[in-house]
């Protein structure tokens, strides 16, 4: 079965370790991720101003591409892309005045009124494939791997685009359980990594990371699972800064959820591109005999 797929810019460069294991895993599960044609950057940070329509144009254009291809659903792997695309889609669905303005501005494109649904790959795994089926396909259970289920912001906020209950999400816990890992739930599961603040204060980003890592560590996690390349960068960089500054700080490896998926499905580690991860995820995997 074929799924319309929106990658996002970073997945083509620094976050190939998010994309490539997903493509390979879905193939193993009998699905094909079909990259939409002529896609452009979604804009990453959703505009929060009521009168700002120009920043809705980029995400809507991508939704138009999906509509043109005759597909009704589009899958993303990046949590930020999901958020921005889904919120722009809501505007096109629910706000007639803005919809008309945007459609008439984009007069070179067919009209769009929110007919495509935007979903995250985790939702496909939960709602279409199902945790039970997924766990049956696991060839290399991630036994004895204690992983903190870190959601960050954009999978859960705001509520109208959240993929799960904002206060008590279970989707990552269930995902990790299906792969045979031990999910670690911790209070800072949805605390912001600092997001775009890394641009104005690159090393100051470590203050956000400290709270998240300390919380995950104190709840017994050995690693963190991620769905977003910006979380990956901010937490990875923050962790490096902290380790340099503070001898007592202990960080932990971070994995994209798709890397854990590929690993558990028994795929070769070459699709996971661990060399792009921050820290040293491979040592942990070797210690757990999940990697030779």
């Amino acid at each position, binding site marked *: 079965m074929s799924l319309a797929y929106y990658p*996002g*810019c*970073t997945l083509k*460069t*620094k*976050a190939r370790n998010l994309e490539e294991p997903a493509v390979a895993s879905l193939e193993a599960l009998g699905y094909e991720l079909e990259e939409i044609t002529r896609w452009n*950057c979604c*804009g*990453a*940070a*959703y*505009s*929060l*101003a*009521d*009168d*700002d329509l120009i*920043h809705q144009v980029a995400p809507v254009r991508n939704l138009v591409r999906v509509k043109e291809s005759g597909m009704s659903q589009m899958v993303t792997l*990046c949590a*930020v892309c999901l958020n921005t695309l889904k919120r722009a889609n809501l505007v096109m669905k629910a706000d007639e005045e803005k919809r008309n303005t945007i459609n008439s501005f984009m007069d070179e494109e067919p009209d769009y009124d929110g007919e495509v649904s935007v979903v995250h790959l985790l939702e496909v795994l939960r709602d279409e494939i199902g945790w039970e089926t997924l766990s049956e396909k696991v060839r290399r259970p991630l036994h004895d791997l204690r992983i903190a289920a870190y959601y960050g*912001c954009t999978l859960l*906020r*705001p*509520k109208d685009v959240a993929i799960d209950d*904002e206060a008590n999400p279970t989707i990552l816990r269930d995902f990790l359980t299906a792969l045979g890992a031990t999910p670690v739930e911790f209070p800072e599961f*949805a*605390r*912001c990594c*600092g*997001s*775009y*603040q*890394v*641009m*104005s204060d*690159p090393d*100051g980003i470590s*203050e*956000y990371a400290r*709270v998240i890592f300390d919380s995950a560590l104190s709840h017994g996690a050995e690693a963190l699972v991620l769905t*977003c*390349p*910006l979380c*990956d*960068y*901010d937490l990875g960089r923050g962790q490096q800064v902290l380790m340099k500054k503070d001898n007592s700080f202990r960080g932990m490896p971070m994995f994209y959820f798709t890397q854990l998926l590929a690993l558990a499905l028994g795929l070769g580690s070459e699709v996971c591109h661990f060399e792009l991860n921050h820290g040293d995820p491979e040592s942990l995997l070797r210690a757990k005999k999940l990697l030779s």
Partner: protein
Amino acid sequence: MAVTVSPKRTRRRFVSKVRELSGQNLQLCYQCGMCAGNCPSAGRMDISPRQIIELARLGLDEEIAESKTVWTCASCLACTVNCPRGFDLSKVMEAIRLLTLRTNRDHVRPEDISQQERCDLPQIAMVSGFRKFTG
């Protein structure tokens, strides 16, 4: 912090612009501080998120302009989802940022980002940073 409050100030264009851009009724806030308590950036701010609302509705835009708070907000919406009054502070932060950015004054200048950072930062950070810090 001592501030001078007057009805003339609260009727300033600044207040109506913030209301208009954010779509928020500034009078909804009852200053409980839940936003500040949930804000992951609060420790890095000089004025707390709660105070921003109060200053905004009193029309004290100079005080807000001197503060780095709105530029320290990461738009994570922790305030928004936890507000007992259903008030969306993230949209007020954005409105105040835009009032500066729309006068063609950038908070971060692309040319000031070091060559090393331009290579290191992932595209997602560059795009979102420019969205929030340049006009």
